[in-house]
């Protein structure tokens, strides 16, 4: 995988994970164009599209688009499964996840992603193991002032 983007229906970026080295400017340009392209697609259309020289796989979950750019040899259908697995992980962690969870706890969303994918590839295929690891890592967090930890919307 080259990168993963999560964005809302209005085109607001909620998460961006880049596995290839690009300058900030390039990243912004790619994001802008790809978001536009994906948002322009109609609901019944294919989840796969060719964009520049990449294969893009995207899926919409409620108000969020999950969009991955994969390489020529990568399997599109399994990428859909990867996206689905990530959503399941978020769902289990946050308890019935919604977009607001990802907005207000974006760093947690990243931590979860980093336990599931490493360098653009899946590192753990068992859902249980990923969640266990996150739990353990969370326990290591030093206690902070109370109001830092309480989720606020």
């Amino acid at each position, binding site marked *: 995988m080259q990168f993963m983007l999560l964005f809302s229906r209005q085109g607001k*970026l909620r998460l961006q994970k880049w596995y290839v080295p690009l300058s900030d400017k390039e990243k912004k340009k790619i994001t802008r164009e790809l978001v536009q392209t994906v948002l322009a697609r109609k609901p019944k259309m294919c989840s796969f599209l060719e964009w520049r020289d990449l294969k893009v796989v995207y899926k919409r979950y409620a108000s969020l688009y999950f969009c991955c750019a994969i390489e020529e040899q990568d399997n599109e259908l399994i990428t859909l499964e990867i996206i689905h697995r990530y959503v399941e992980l978020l769902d289990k962690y946050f308890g019935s996840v919604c977009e607001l969870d990802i907005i*207000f706890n974006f760093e947690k969303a990243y931590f979860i992603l980093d336990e599931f994918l490493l360098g653009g590839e*899946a590192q753990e*295929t068992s859902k249980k193991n990923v969640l266990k690891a996150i739990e353990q890592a969370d326990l290591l967090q030093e206690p902070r002032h109370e109001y830092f930890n309480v989720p606020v919307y």
Partner: protein
Amino acid sequence: MSPSIPLQEMIRAIRSARTQCEERGVIQRECAAIRAQFRQVDNGGARSHNLAKLLYVHMLGYPAHFGQMECVRMIASPRYSEKRVGYLGAMMLLDEKQDASLLITNSIKNDLAHSNQYVQSLALCTLACMGSAEMCRDLAPEIDRLLRASNSYIKKKAALCAVHIVRKVHDLGELFAPAARSLLAEKNHGVLHGAVVLITQLCERNPEALERFRKTVPDLVQIMKGLVISGYSPEHDVAGISDPFLQVRILRLLRILGRHNETASDAMNDLLAQVATNTDSTKTVGNAVLYETVLTVLDIKSESGLRVLAVNILGRFLLNNDRNIRYIAMTSLQRIVGTDHNAVQRHRGTIVDCLKDQDASVKRRALELSLALVSASNIRTMMKELLLFLSSCPPGAQSSSCQRHIPCGRKAGGDVRDETVPNLIQLITNTSELHCYTVHKLYRALLTDISQPSLVQVACWCIGEYGDLLLKGECQETEPSQVTEDDALDALETVLQSHMSSPATRGFALTATMKLSTRITENVDRIRSIVSIYGSCMDVELQQRAVEYNALFRKYDHMRAAVLERMPVIEKNSSGHTNGETAGDAVKEIQPAAVKQTGPLLPQQPANQVCDLLDLLGGSEEPLQPSTALGLPNSTSTAGGDLLDLLGGLELTPLAPAPTVPVYEKDGVSLTLICEKTSDSGMTVTLTASNSTDSDISVFTLQAAVPKSVQLHMKAPSGDFLPARGAAKVTQMVALNNPNKVNLKMRIRISYNTSQGSAYQDTVQIDSFPGL
């Protein structure tokens, strides 16, 4: 200094900003506070959450480079929460292009050896995400150590980290090869997955490694069998498939190992057959595995039975309700259409059906595949489908489809029926943005091969029509090439002189040459000489054209530009299209081109008559006689005579079409007149009556009187009943002959009965006849 607010408070504040300006204000305030905090030595637990705030702001698109050094500091902190956010910041703000990234190498090195596996994990993750080549070189030995001696949690991460290192520094692949091999013996799925990915990477980069790793094929087959057959592992199960992620990666590795190698391919044959038949294909996840299996089967040296099985799976995919699966199937079929052509042909029907899909990507795939499947035997049906598809395409898609259609036309050229020529020409005129590209492409096609009549005809037509674009040289979608006027004329002349060209084709070429006379500047004389040569050609059609064109050069040179200007866009209901559907119809392909050539020149009335004529014939099988009515009313077939007569007529009248003149309007009854000269002294006047009242009019008659020397002949009127509200009209044609050329006047008496039964009469005098 304002107290720093918690991260989530800030997020809420930013979200509640109503305007971009307000948002910017909030962010600027926060960034200032964050900067200040960074400068302080130690804030207790607030440091990590300050950086988190900065990362949020960065995600919104605001600059955050001042946080880079803070990331470096945080990574070096002993506190886990600070490390965690620090590493996250490093992955977001520091890429290998930043100098600051080198500063974290030492921290990473230390953390790789940390006693806590979660700290190690952070370091591994960051290195795999943004490690530069230099960092990778420095830390590779550490990674290798971790690959060998650590727990599974770390091993699986180290394996993927190694993948990244190998991508950055190819030589380091050697270093990891032995460790990778031994990892295949692990039971842990995460480690296995990492190992398979690593081995795949090593084999892709290095052919020697590939040779060595071929020995692992039996092991891989064993692992795969374990996944497919035995045991339901709840931990790794996805909709009944045991660890599909691992299965897909193993299949991919097997593909690489089995390619070009008989032994390896044999070893995996059974397994692949098993996976192909046993995998449940009701859900996407099953199809993902099947897809990978099919790709592998088709790429290695598999048995023919297995290949057939694979293609059948793709065929099943084509019928799947899920659009994604259909798309995937077509992508795969595209890859094998060259090698397994017959197998793919069997599914041609389904593929052609996909041309009608709603999704543009699916349509494009179907088009590419359909074009690849065109062959001599199915060309007729295929062309029909493709043309239908092209005509229903939105304009943007049309250009890319046309781009592919043209090479297809070239391929199928010899067998293509003549109806496709006008169809293709019509399509080309409709996609104006493509003219430049089309003419370049066709010109080049013409240079290489002039044996296929349809292609040559279309090419000649385009060169004639868009010659100026061809000569201009620049074209966006194809490489620029300098085509000179001589080159273009050479090409056309070659077609003219070639014994392979049919008379029809030469007709196209001659007309195109003539058209170029207005589009080029220097070689007009050359064109003149070409045209005059053909004035004595044996072929009557060519001779006629040549003589006509000669006349355009000589007597009617002032009209040449108007006659030869750019064609208007051909409408979809033109004769070419409807007649295309009739079988065995000899509608002259030449005629549409020739007729439309003189199209803009004709006054409106004959053109209308022509359309009516075609409508009357509608979809009938009756072939239209070549030399008559099609646009040249009352013409004889004497060579050159017709065009001259028409031009002669036009010398007297303006080029505007004959107007419809209202001559009488009273009580809702109106009468209009169209006048048209038919010979030197003769003309036809058409009177049209209509009734705009709310009640019908019956027994409507017209009587006409003219000066003594003028001969008058009233033809039968179309009827005598004028329904209310102009539902229908009555026309009356009057033929006049004015040999003495007196001043023409006409008196018309109108008489009719209203719906109440009362009779009505009126008279009107017409003194001037426009159009004369």
